[in-house]
């Protein structure tokens, strides 16, 4: 796997960290550094008495440092990784010290354990817990339905003018009912300020109501869609259960990576594309403030040879990595030929999963363009979609294209497009 500076820098928790990491990428800063095919390790002088020991697993770019920094990965980890990428030739090939061997073994064991069945579950206790929760959720849903009906009776304008407390109270009630998915959707109702607010608010209200309705009639729904409804309500599916299912082996291109910080929790999203199966996947993981590193550390633009297990869904996207055999070189890809095909695909997806969130897609031959104050992606037939305002590399994309078509990976969110990366000379470049 060929790591690039951009791929590594994308791991930095913030801009300051990028700068510090770049400073630490100078080989002269390092007391020593070594590498073999699997790992890179080195020592650097810090403010502590002893030099900090830094190690990187090249298999999945996981890393560790003995410094006390709360920021993870720290500047030493990224710095050494950058240093390795820029000066691979000056890294002495060495036998792994014991401490590195142990660390890598533990990582491998942890990886292998993910695929192993866990100890038997007390089914009676589990069923009791499930029944109790179902009761709480059902009661909560009844309460929410009444609240939603009251809200629509008073009108959208009244709902828009309601204070935050109105929504927060219902959110808290949904948390008590162990329906955190509904709780999140309730609080989203409090911030509808954009253009076409009436449509947006009505969409959110009616979606929420329909999820409640779907739950009360869940047995009548297709089996996989039942799982989607439960997930939307807030049920977590056991990772062990997911990993015990059949996995899909493929060479997965990491199309993009997103990180969202929210109070004490960081949400990591890796968007993947399987080059043999043409499937897309989302690796969603949560990292608590106290947790030193996230579940996945894949770099956008890298390709991993891995087995993935998908969460059951009418439109399966979320997955877990069952086995990761490490990074490999760039691989082939395929994509939709035009935006018309994407329209049809979206219709099909909506017909099986009307609550589908944004999803990744590869579309070939799209031209990024600036049309007055709008940014668009246009296909060969002149169809175009608007680029999300929050995408901040518009001019970089425009410059790379020069007004000519590019094969792009995107996140599609109800006809708004968010570019994740592009292919150039057969190589995928993450934006």
């Amino acid at each position: 796997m060929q790591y690039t500076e951009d791929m590594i820098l994308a791991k930095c928790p913030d801009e300051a960290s990028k700068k510090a990491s770049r400073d630490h990428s100078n080989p002269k800063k390092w007391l020593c550094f070594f590498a073999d095919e699997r790992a890179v390790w080195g020592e650097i002088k810090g403010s502590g008495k002893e030099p900090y020991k830094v190690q990187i697993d090249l298999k999945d770019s996981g890393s560790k440092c003995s410094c006390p920094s709360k920021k993870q990965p720290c500047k030493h980890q990224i710095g050494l990784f950058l240093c390795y990428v820029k000066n691979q030739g000056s890294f002495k090939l060495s036998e792994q010290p014991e401490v590195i061997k142990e660390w890598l073994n533990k990582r491998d064991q942890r990886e292998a354990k993910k695929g192993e069945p866990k100890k038997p579950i007390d089914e009676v206790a589990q069923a009791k817990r499930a029944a109790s929760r179902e009761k709480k959720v059902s009661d909560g849903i009844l309460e929410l339905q009444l609240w939603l009906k009251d809200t629509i009776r008073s009108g959208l304008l009244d709902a828009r003018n309601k204070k935050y407390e109105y929504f927060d109270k219902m959110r808290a009630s949904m948390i008590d009912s162990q329906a955190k998915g509904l709780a999140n959707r309730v609080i989203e109702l409090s911030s509808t300020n954009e253009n076409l607010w009436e449509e947006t608010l009505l969409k959110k209200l009616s979606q929420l109501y329909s999820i409640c309705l779907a739950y009360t009639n869940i047995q009548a729904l297709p089996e996989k869609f039942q799982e989607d409804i439960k997930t939307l309500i807030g049920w977590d599916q056991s990772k062990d259960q997911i990993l015990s299912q059949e996995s899909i082996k493929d060479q997965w291109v990491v199309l993009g990576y997103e990180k969202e910080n929210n109070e004490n929790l960081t949400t990591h999203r890796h968007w993947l594309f399987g080059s043999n199966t043409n499937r897309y996947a989302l690796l969603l993981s949560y990292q608590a403030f106290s947790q030193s590193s996230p579940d996945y550390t894949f770099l956008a633009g890298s390709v991993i040879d891995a087995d993935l297990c998908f969460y059951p869904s009418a439109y399966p996207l979320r997955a877990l990595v069952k086995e990761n055999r490490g990074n490999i070189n760039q691989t082939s890809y395929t994509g939709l030929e035009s935006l018309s095909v994407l329209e049809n695909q979206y219709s099909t997806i909506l017909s099986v999963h009307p609550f589908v969130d944004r999803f990744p897609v590869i579309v070939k031959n799209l031209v990024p363009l600036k049309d007055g104050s709008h940014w668009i992606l246009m296909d060969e037939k002149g169809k175009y979609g608007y680029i999300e305002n929050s995408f901040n590399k518009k001019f970089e994309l425009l410059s790379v294209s020069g007004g000519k078509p590019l094969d792009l990976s995107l996140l599609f969110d109800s006809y708004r497009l968010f570019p994740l990366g592009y292919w150039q000379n057969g190589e995928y470049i993450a934006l």
Partner: protein
Amino acid sequence: MNHWTDLSKKLVLGTDKLSLEPSVLPPDLESAYSSLKDNTDKEDLTMQLSFLLWNYAEGGKVFPTTKKIFTEAAPETQPVISKEKELLLQSILTHQLDDLLLIFLNRCADNKEILPPHILPTIFNKSKTLLEIREPVLKVVGERGKWLLSQNDLWNSTLNKEPQEIWETGKMVERLAVLQEIRKSEPKKSIEWLQLAWNQETAANRLILLEELENNTNEGDISFLEEVLKNDRSEKVKKLSLDFLAKIDSSGCEQKLYDLFHPNFEKDKKGIFKINVPETLSVELRNIGILDLSYRGFTQEESWVFQILSLIKPVRWTKKFATTSKILLEQLSKNKATSKYYKALINSAILHRDVIWSKEILNYEANQKKPDLDKDDFNQLFKQISIEDKQKFFYSKLYSHLGSGINLLVFAINCDFPWSLKFTEDMFAALSLQYKSIYYDRDSIYLLHKFAHSGILTKLDQLGDLRYEDNFNKLLQAMELGSQLAS
């Protein structure tokens, strides 16, 4: 208006007056409506129909179409820089080494190479604030860059505006930069520009703009400066214009001041220097531009003298009294009655860029028990002296006695000549010993990369732990990039 939008508008005021007729839904959803029509719960029905309608509208939505023709970038005719050079450029940009960036871009322009497309937005953004790179930038962005500029009004106007247009419409920082440029090449034009804009500028801006006349001060500036001195409302502006006039011999200003004032500066019978403070400011001196300024610790009359002494060439006094600058400085500063004018002599040495006096003042200060040289004055005086004298100051450790604001780092940054390897080694060794006691200015240490000899990069062991210090590391990085650039 489609059915979905229509329903959302109707629901703005709630369900009270809402009539859920079949026409709420499009004909395609007729069967769905008939399965729901018996629902007597109006809000439940509203919610279900809303979701159904949204889903129908969303599923049937299509992307818009345009027949507009968009331009493409023309094919490139020049080669793109190599991957190695690109990495070097990325590092220069990362570390914000703007001086190296200018060298890099000029080098590319000379080699007729262009930058890769993905870097262009960063470079264009840089050139918004870094005016000196604008010229080479236009040479290295190729056809892609020209095309990209046409898509971004801000970049386009920044890079393609005529200097005069920037001067007339730009921000202060941009205007200042073009004024600096024009001052170098066409000093006469710079005066024309200033004259045209002068009355519209604030006093603060007038002062900033006038400071640019420090470079290339010449005979052509006289009438403008005299006009400013006569009519400007700001005392600071007036004072500065008088400074410049005094620098220009052909203005006769300094000569007149000397002629009028020198009888007041004399030696008494015991050979002690004496300055007689006039009771009134003569009409002649007032006409030259001496102002009623008030300096702290000075009477009004003393302030006139201070101004006059600051403007007269210091060499006049050594000639008049047939003495040396050293003796004059010593006697003047030791005598209570004249010591307050010592600073005026420093000002005049700086104003007239007097090399001998500058060196003598620095020597004199370095030998004082309690030196009190202002950091700015040190910078200005040190600039005047020769490279040999600068090195002498370092080896004799005179820099350590120059005043509280002047540490080794400040001194090193002022050693603005190409350092030999020996000088670099010695300076770095001294810095590594004293670095921890320097509590300020540390982040400016990277500026030394402009002078330090790159040979030191192979001898970093001599620096001990200092090389791991963040700011020092940045310096080494900059030196390394500089030497890569040179090769």
